[in-house]
């Protein structure tokens, strides 16, 4: 037996037409074709999706938690960037 482990893949599923692919989890697979097959079996067996993307986890470059303050804090006191200063007319749903 070889001890080498298969690479990790991040799985993205589009649940229906018009929506974005959303990250649902990760899994291990030998290559991209098998990763798609595995994702189909692990993440769409209850009709969760119509399209699958897989990305090898090593290709994901993430923001660092230690930078979080510098990255995200400055936006917190800039409420004028949110579209909250409008009156929504009566009869508009789903806002």
């Amino acid at each position, binding site marked *: *037996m*070889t001890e080498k482990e*298969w690479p990790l893949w991040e799985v993205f599923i589009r649940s229906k037409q018009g929506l974005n692919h959303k990250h649902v989890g990760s*899994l*291990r*697979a*030998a*290559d991209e*074709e*098998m990763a798609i*097959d*595995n994702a*189909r*079996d*692990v993440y769409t*067996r209850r009709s969760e999706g119509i399209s699958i993307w897989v990305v090898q986890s090593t290709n994901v470059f993430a923001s660092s938690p230690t930078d979080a303050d510098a990255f995200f804090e400055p936006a917190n006191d800039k409420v004028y960037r949110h579209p909250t200063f409008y009156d929504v007319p009566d009869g508009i749903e789903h806002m």
Partner: protein
Amino acid sequence: MSKALFEYVLRLGDDSLILGQRLSEWCGHGPILEEDIATTNIALDLIGQATTLLEYAAHLEGKKRSADELAFLRIDREYKNLLLVEQENGDFGKTIMRQFLFDAYRKLLFEKLLSSSDEHLAAIAEKSLKETKYHLKHSSEWVIRLGDGTEESHERVQDSLNELWRYTGELFFEDEVDTELKGSGVIPDVSDIQDKWNELVMNVLAEATLTIPNDNWQFDGGRVGKHSEHLGYLLSVMQYMQRAYPNMEW
């Protein structure tokens, strides 16, 4: 006609039932979580196909025997599945090879059955074909990766091919049941499927760097109820509940 059709549908139903039972033995034992789920998904697809086929067989027989009775209360000689599907799981490579050889046959058969003169059988084929296409994709991709993988995986899956090849002749078994149904356009000509099966299997095995064994000895008997020693053990597990607690439901 309906007697031959009953026999034919029973054969297809038993293939699905016995292979589904075999594959379900992997539940909780798969080599990795992803494959554990894949294998048991396929097992469930096959049990679903068995249900539809055996329900139709029960209807054709017209003796008020239910699909459940057909599945759980026959003795080994009354099962008409291929010898291939009752063979033991062995290692993962052997399970995959058995699945590949069967899936290739099943997919080609269902494609032909789409144009069966028997509408019910054509409808079952249409529904099952979608599942079977995925089964074949899954098993052939694995055969390629195991065959063209490491030295050990190549050796193991080649051994499995050598062992299972002798059960592939039976895929194209024909007797008076087939002759009668062929005449009325219910089932396709088996030689048509055989040529395509050879082509499909050769292509995948070539990509997997595997070689077909020279030994041409072939077994048959499953289609007329003469099975290998493995079926009895499988049935004793599968039938235990109904035998021990007759008519139990859950």
